[in-house]
């Protein structure tokens, strides 16, 4: 029996949902486990970094890495895995585009620490504790990883072969990706392993979208009783379907929530948030500029909505912070 | 009957006057005036003015600085804004009257007319107490406008006092008038560099 291909899974700055998604493969995971040899999966199995370091370079067939990169330790780990792997797959929105943690690029380390350790309401007001990278204890010097000013996507740190988008990627896409890797039927390097068109193309509600999609008001999901059989955009609720890559089969929409764009932009669009912004501006149909402003102002937190998953990989990248002394 | 020469030579006019008025808040639309006379016609007191509001606008546009600042009209204006609302060109005529009043005050370009004098007294009192005491103000008005009007006002004052709507003793004032003065003082130095030395700012006892 030929040696089973070695597989590693790792997480960086992420919520853990991507790990859940792997577990959510349900019975299919047994097939995967039978087909591969998992050599590193800190969430589930007890392997040490030294085990990985001990492997020869390129010994791992594929590493699935989820989460954005924002700590020096994460950088070290992904560089290690890159060295040891033939293929690296950025797994999930955070790794692919920067993800929700990427919204931290609206601040920097100092302002984040300021809030988290001093200003946020606390049981212990006035505490001044701040994480340090080095501390002396009787047993010797302890070291903690460095926290970066800027969150990065995986491809901003190491070379990435494929991307599995989604928050998290759907079981079907994961299974397809594993299948493709196992059978060697791989698309060109750099491909996003999902649909090529935007989500509307596979959304059932697209049929109900009026030919002239123009809205007079913007509503939040909490403000309306959504008609689940009618295109949400036509009901004034911002759905990012038109801007977002397909492949999820309109999972959220079928579940009664509009698309928030976790699959990111289609290949040809350079900046997800910019396109999303121009798309929303396009469909708001108001003659009176004052009223239009009023309605557009109802898009609470535009950065958070239009760049929810992709700030680090957008043309903006991050907010420019004032120079600190 | 005296014969007067009315021709105006260009050098007697102030070419910059119009721009000066137009650059003040509310004066910007003055160029749009059609001279239609709606302002004069709707004004409840234009019939008492030496120059109707329409003429005042026309004079400002022509650079007739002295004629405007020396006119009675600007002091007759009751600031009821009827002209401003009715003007088909949306010229803020009331605001322009105020602009002219302020210029006249600053340049002492007004006859010893009772209205500007009363307004100065008002400003002084408000600056001191932060608020206005009507009875004290009344006395000042009477002093400015002469004994006869004072006699005429006496029965009115007496009746108001009996109804507890006026008192000679009570002074209406803020708890802390200094807090207002701090704000006003902060605005004071603005005038210092621009005001000509010969015409000290009349804006209330600096």
């Amino acid at each position, binding site marked *: 029996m030929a040696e089973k291909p070695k597989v590693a899974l790792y997480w960086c700055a992420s919520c853990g949902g991507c790990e859940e998604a792997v577990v959510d493969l349900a019975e299919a995971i047994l097939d995967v486990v039978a087909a591969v040899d998992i050599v590193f999966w800190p969430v589930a199995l007890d392997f040490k970094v030294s085990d990985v370091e001990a492997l020869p370079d390129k010994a791992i067939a594929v590493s699935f890495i989820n989460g954005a990169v924002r700590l020096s330790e994460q950088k070290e780990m992904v560089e290690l895995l890159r060295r040891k792997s033939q293929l690296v797959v950025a797994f999930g929105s955070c790794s692919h585009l920067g993800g929700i943690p990427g919204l931290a690029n609206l601040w920097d380390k100092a302002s984040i620490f300021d809030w988290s350790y001093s200003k946020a309401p606390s049981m212990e007001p006035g505490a001044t504790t701040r994480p340090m990278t080095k501390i002396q204890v009787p047993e010797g010097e302890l070291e903690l990883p460095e926290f970066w000013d800027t969150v990065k996507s995986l491809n901003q740190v190491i070379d990435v072969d494929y991307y599995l988008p989604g928050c998290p990627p759907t079981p079907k896409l994961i299974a397809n990706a594993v299948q493709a890797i196992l059978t060697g039927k791989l698309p060109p390097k750099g491909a996003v392993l999902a649909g090529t068109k935007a989500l509307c193309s596979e959304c059932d509600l697209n049929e109900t979208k009026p030919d002239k999609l123009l809205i007079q008001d913007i509503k939040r999901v909490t403000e309306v009783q959504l008609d689940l059989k009618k295109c949400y955009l036509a009901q004034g609720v911002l759905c990012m379907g038109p801007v977002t890559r397909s492949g999820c089969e309109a999972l959220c929409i079928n579940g009664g929530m509009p698309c928030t764009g976790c699959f990111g932009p289609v290949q040809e669009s350079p900046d997800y948030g910019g396109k999303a912004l121009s798309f929303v501006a396009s469909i708001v149909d108001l003659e009176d500029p004052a009223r239009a402003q009023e309605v557009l102002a109802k898009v609470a937190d535009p950065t958070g909505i239009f760049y929810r998953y992709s700030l680090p990989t957008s043309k903006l990248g991050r907010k420019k912070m004032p120079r600190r002394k | 009957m005296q014969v007067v020469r009315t021709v105006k030579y260009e050098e007697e006019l102030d070419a910059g006057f119009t721009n000066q008025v137009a650059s*003040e*808040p509310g004066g910007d639309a003055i160029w749009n005036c059609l001279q239609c006379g709606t302002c004069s016609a709707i004004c*409840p*007191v234009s019939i*008492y003015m030496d120059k109707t509001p329409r003429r005042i606008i026309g004079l400002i546009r022509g650079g007739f600085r002295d004629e405007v600042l020396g006119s009675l009209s600007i*002091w*007759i204006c*009751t*600031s*009821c*804004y*009827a002209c*401003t*609302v009715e003007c088909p060109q949306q010229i*803020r005529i009331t605001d322009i009257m*105020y602009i002219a*009043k*302020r210029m006249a*005050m600053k340049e002492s370009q007004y006859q010893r007319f*009772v*209205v*500007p004098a*009363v*307004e*100065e007294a*008002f*400003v002084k009192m*408000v600056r001191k107490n*932060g*608020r*206005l*005491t*009507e009875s004290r103000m009344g006395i000042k*008005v009477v002093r400015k*406008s002469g004994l006869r*009007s004072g006699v*005429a006002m006496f*029965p*009115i004052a007496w*009746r*108001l006092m009996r*109804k*507890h*709507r*006026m008192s000679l003793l009570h002074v*209406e004032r*803020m*708890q*802390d008038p200094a*807090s*207002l003065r*701090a*704000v*006003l003082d*902060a*605005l004071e130095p*603005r005038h210092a560099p621009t005001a000509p030395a010969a015409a000290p700012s*009349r*804006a*209330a006892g600096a």
Partner: protein
Amino acid sequence: MTGYLYYPGCSLKGSGAPYEKSLLAVFSALGQELKEIPDWNCCGATAYLSVDQDMAVAMAARNLAIAEKLDGQDVVAPCSGCYLSLAKAKATLAEYPDVRARVTAALGKASLPYEGRVAVRHPLEVLLTDVGPEVLKKRVTRPLKNLRVAPYYGCAILRPYPGVPSPQAPHSLEDLCRVVGATPVDYPNKARCCGGMLTAGVQSVGLRLVEILLCEAKAADVDAVVTTCPLCQYNLEVYQERICKAKGKDVRLPILYFTQLLGMAFGLDDHALGMDQLLRVPLVAPCAGVKA
């Protein structure tokens, strides 16, 4: 955030005392809180604007800044003159960045940041739109039937920052009269100036304007003129005797505040409404039946 902030202005603390009394009584009868702005200052009136624009705006804006510092509720300014000064200052600060820069800097010296967040309202509009005619009608216990009233708005709350709807053809006072059961007469000069400060400055002119208004009301055979402004009320009320004497015609008429009219219909006590402070005791004949 409930209720309103209350900006009385100087007149309501003096000759306009009946206005303040009736206003507070009516609002409290309706369960609407009016909280006086602490240590308010004069709005600047017309006089300050004739002397210095920035200071005039700053005077008014200081009151608005204090209101902002509190809960930022709407500011109710019953005196039409104050209403106009405050509204105009707010508009000037919004429209002219230079003025705003200078005035906010000056207010900053007194630690009063100004953002222009509070709305300036006139109580007539508050009563008819926020409270609403239906609620007012329900509270009426003594409908003022048989009472003919001349609705007189004066100038300041109609323009140019209208404190009541339809400034060209206002009907708020008429609506209010109907709410209390009284009959508003057609009063063509209802938006004409009362003479304002000219009754003090240039009396011959001021009194002529008063005379026209009173004659017209008299010709319409009304029982009272209803006003919304302490200066209008004062001008129309205190010069009646003098005009009678000078012109040889009877122009004597009760001049009421609209809040007094409302208070009467609510069945509030005459003293609480400051009725006894009016120079001309009103409405003896038409209200005799009601009072009994």
